[in-house]
C-alpha cells in the first residue's frame, strides 16, 4: 500500500511542480490517515503525556524503516539506555540487537546528568550535531528519532541558547534530508513542555492516553500536516504483542459493492424462512434475544456451517471463553474444535471492560486484517457498556469494515426483558440487514423459545413466529400454533393440539349420533306406518265381517219370511 502511495505521489509530482514526498511508517492505519506517511526529509513532532507510547511509536518507525523499506535509522535517546530500549521493544517481537549488528540501526543514548554539569561561558550544541551526524553517516541513515530532546532543558541552564540551537538542529536535519521524529512531553496549555512545536511545524502528531470509566484508550491525532491533507479525527491505536496499529475510521463510505450470493445460516429451517435461503454474503445480521434463548447457538451454527464449507471464521467472544463455547456447542451437536484445529476458526476472547470501545474496534480490525475471515461473529455486542453514541460509532465502523471486505458479520445482542430494546440494539438496528429476534414465551409454568425475522433487507422473508428447539443435533423449528389467543408454544401447543383432536372426534361422534337418530326415526315412522296399516287392515276385516254377517242376516230374514208365509198359508 505504501508502495502504491509512492507511485501515485510520483505521478502527481510529474504534473505538479513538486508534490510532498512521504515516508511510510509501516504502522498500519497511520500511513492511511496521513495519506502515505510522514513528510520525507522533514522533522515530525510526536507529542503526548508520559506513557503514551511515544518511544515505541518512534522505535516502530525506525524498525519498520530498516526491515520493510530499506531505510536505516538512528535513534538518539535522551531518556532510556540502549539496552532498556532493546528490552522494551523485544516485547513487541523486534530484535533490535540484530539490526544494530547489521548496521541497520544505531542507538545512541545521550546521558545528561545535571549534577555533573557546570556552565561557564558561551557554548553551543555542536557536539550533539557532530555526534548525530556521525551516527547518520556511519550507516547512511534515512530516518532519525530524537527521544525526547526536551531532556536537554533539564540538563542545561541557558534555555535561550538551547532554543536557538534546537531551531538550528531542525533546520540541519532538513538539510540532511532525513525524515525525523522528535518526541516531546505534553506540557500545560501547549503541545510540548518547552514549546518546541514552534520549531517543528511540518507535521505534528499528538498521542493521548485517556481513562474513561476506568478504561484506558490510546488515541492519536494528526494536529497538523503542512502541505498535505490528513485525517483530522482522533483515532484509537493500540500497542500489544503485534506492535502498534492505528485504526483509521475513515471507512464511513457506503460505496462497497454488494453480493447476491446467499450464505446458509446453518439452520435449514431458518434458511427456509429467508427468501434467498440464507443471508446475503457481506451483510450484517443481528441476533437479539433474552438470556438463554440460544443466541450463541445460532451464531455457532452459522460458524459451523461456514467452516464446514471451508470458509474462515473469526469469533469474537466477550462473555465466554473459547473453550467454554466449544464445550457448550458439543451439547447441541456441534464440533467446533475440529474447525479450530484445521485453522478455519479462530476465537478472540476479551473482556469488554479490558479496553474502551475504540480499542476493541482497533483490535478487531487488526485481527480481521490478519486472519482474513469470510465470516465474523461478535458475541455479544451488548457486552459493551457506555454512551450509546460511542457504541453506535464503534459498531458502525465495524459493520463498515466488514461490508467493505465482503465479510458476513453476525452480531448477537442480549435484550433486557420485555419489549424494550437495549442501548446497543437501538444503536445498531438501522445498520443491520437481517434482524432475528429470539423470544421467550412464558405461559403455563414453562418457557418456550420462539423466533421471528424482524427484518431482512432485500429479500422476501417469513413473517411468522416460529417455535424452535435446541436439540442435541442442532436447532429445529416447530410450527407454532397460531390460534385466536395468539401463539401457543410448548405444552400449551401440545394441549391445544390435543384439544383439537378431541373436538374433531366429538364432532365426528355427533354426526354419527345424528345419523343413528335419523335411522331410528325412520324405523319408528316405518313402524308407525305399519301399525296404521295393520289397524286399517283390522278395521277392513271387521267391516267385511260385519257386512258378511249383515248379508247372512238379510238372507236368513228373507227365508224366514217366506217360510212364515207358507206356514200362514199365504203360499197359494
Amino acid at each position: 500500500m505504501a508502495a502504491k502511495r509512492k507511485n501515485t505521489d510520483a505521478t502527481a509530482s510529474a504534473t505538479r511542480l513538486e508534490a510532498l514526498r512521504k515516508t511510510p511508517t509501516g504502522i498500519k492505519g497511520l500511513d492511511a490517515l496521513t495519506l502515505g506517511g510522514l513528510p520525507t526529509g522533514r522533522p515530525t513532532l510526536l507529542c503526548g503525556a508520559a506513557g503514551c507510547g511515544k518511544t515505541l511509536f518512534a522505535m516502530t518507525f525506525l524498525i519498520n524503516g530498516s526491515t520493510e523499506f530499506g531505510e536505516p535509522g538512528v535513534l538518539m535517546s535522551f531518556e532510556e539506555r540502549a539496552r532498556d530500549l532493546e528490552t522494551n521493544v523485544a516485547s513487541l517481537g523486534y530484535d533490535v540487537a540484530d539490526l544494530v549488528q547489521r548496521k541497520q540501526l544505531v542507538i545512541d543514548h545521550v546521558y545528561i546528568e545535571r549534577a555533573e554539569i557546570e556552565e561557564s561561558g558561551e557554548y553551543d550544541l555542536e557536539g550533539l550535531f557532530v555526534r548525530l551526524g556521525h551516527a547518520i553517516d556511519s550507516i547512511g541513515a534515512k530516518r532519525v528519532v530524537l527521544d525526547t530532546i526536551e531532556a536537554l532543558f533539564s540538563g542545561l541552564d541557558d534555555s535561550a541558547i538551547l532554543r536557538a540551537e534546537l531551531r538550528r538542529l531542525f533546520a540541519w536535519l532538513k538539510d540532511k534530508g532525513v525524515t525525523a521524529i522528535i518526541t516531546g512531553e505534553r506540557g500545560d496549555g501547549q503541545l510540548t513542555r518547552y514549546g518546541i512545536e514552534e520549531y517543528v511545524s511540518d507535521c505534528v502528531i499528538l498521542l493521548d492516553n485517556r481513562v474513561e470509566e476506568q478504561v484506558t484508550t490510546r488515541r492519536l491525532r494528526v494536529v497538523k500536516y503542512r502541505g498535505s491533507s490528513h485525517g483530522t479525527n482522533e483515532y484509537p491505536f493500540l500497542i500489544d504483542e503485534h506492535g502498534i496499529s492505528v485504526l483509521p475510521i475513515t471507512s464511513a463510505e457506503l460505496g462497497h459493492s454488494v453480493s447476491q450470493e446467499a450464505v446458509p445460516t446453518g439452520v435449514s429451517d431458518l434458511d427456509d424462512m429467508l427468501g434467498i435461503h440464507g443471508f446475503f454474503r457481506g451483510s450484517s445480521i443481528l441476533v437479539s434475544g433474552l438470556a438463554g434463548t440460544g443466541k450463541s447457538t445460532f451464531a455457532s451454527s452459522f460458524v459451523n456451517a461456514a467452516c464446514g464449507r471451508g470458509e474462515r471464521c473469526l469469533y469474537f467472544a466477550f462473555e465466554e471463553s473459547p473453550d467454554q463455547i466449544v464445550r457448550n456447542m458439543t451439547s447441541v451437536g456441534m464440533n467446533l474444535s475440529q474447525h479450530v484445529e484445521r485453522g478455519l476458526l479462530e476465537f478472540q476472547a476479551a473482556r469488554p471492560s479490558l479496553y474502551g470501545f475504540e480499542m476493541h474496534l482497533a483490535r478487531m480490525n487488526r485481527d480481521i486484517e490478519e486472519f482474513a475471515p469470510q465470516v465474523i461473529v461478535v458475541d455479544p455486542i451488548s457486552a459493551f457498556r457506555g454512551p450509546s453514541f460511542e457504541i453506535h460509532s464503534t459498531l458502525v465502523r465495524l459493520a463498515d469494515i466488514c461490508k467493505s471486505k465482503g465479510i458476513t458479520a453476525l452480531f448477537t445482542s442480549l435484550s433486557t426483558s420485555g419489549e424494550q430494546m437495549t442501548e446497543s440494539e437501538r444503536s445498531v438496528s438501522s445498520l443491520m440487514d437481517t434482524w432475528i429476534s429470539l423470544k421467550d414465551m412464558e405461559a403455563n409454568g414453562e418457557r418456550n423459545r420462539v423466533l421471528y425475522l424482524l427484518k431482512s433487507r432485500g429479500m422476501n422473508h417469513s413473517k411468522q413466529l416460529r417455535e424452535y428447539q435446541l436439540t442435541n443435533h442442532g436447532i429445529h423449528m416447530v410450527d407454532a400454533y397460531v390460534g385466536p389467543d395468539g401463539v401457543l408454544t410448548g405444552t400449551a401447543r401440545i394441549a391445544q393440539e390435543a384439544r383439537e383432536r378431541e373436538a374433531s372426534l366429538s364432532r365426528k361422534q355427533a354426526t354419527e349420533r345424528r345419523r343413528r337418530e335419523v335411522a331410528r326415526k325412520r324405523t319408528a315412522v316405518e313402524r308407525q306406518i305399519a301399525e296404521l296399516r295393520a289397524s286399517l287392515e283390522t278395521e277392513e276385516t271387521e267391516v267385511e265381517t260385519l257386512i258378511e254377517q249383515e248379508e247372512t242376516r238379510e238372507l236368513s230374514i228373507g227365508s224366514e219370511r217366506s217360510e212364515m208365509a207358507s206356514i200362514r198359508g199365504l203360499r197359494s
Partner: protein
Amino acid sequence: MTDHNDSDLPEGQYKLRLFITGSTPRSTRAIENMRRICAENLEGRYDLEVVDVYQDPEATKDLQIIATPTLVKILPEPLRRIIGDLSDRERVLAGLDIAPLGKGDHE
C-alpha cells in the same frame, strides 16, 4: 566512562579533556582560557588533551558530549563537565574542585 586505565597517574593528578569544534573563535577562546587556568592552578599536576570533535566524532559518544566546548574532568573523581568557553574562571575552578587563587573559600 570513567574506567579508563589511569593507574599510571600519580595521586592528585588532573586528567582533563577539552572538546572543541575546529578553530572557531569560541574553541580558540576555550583553549586559551583552559591553558591559563591550568598554568595558574594546576602547574605540574595535570594532563590536558584537546579533542576536535570534527576530527574524532566517535569521541563524543564515549564521553557523552553534547555541548561544545566542554571540559571533562575525568580524574580525580567524580567526573565533571564544564561547558562553555570557560570564560567564567570562578565556575571552572568550582567545577574542578580547586579553590580559586586569591580567595580562601570554595565557590
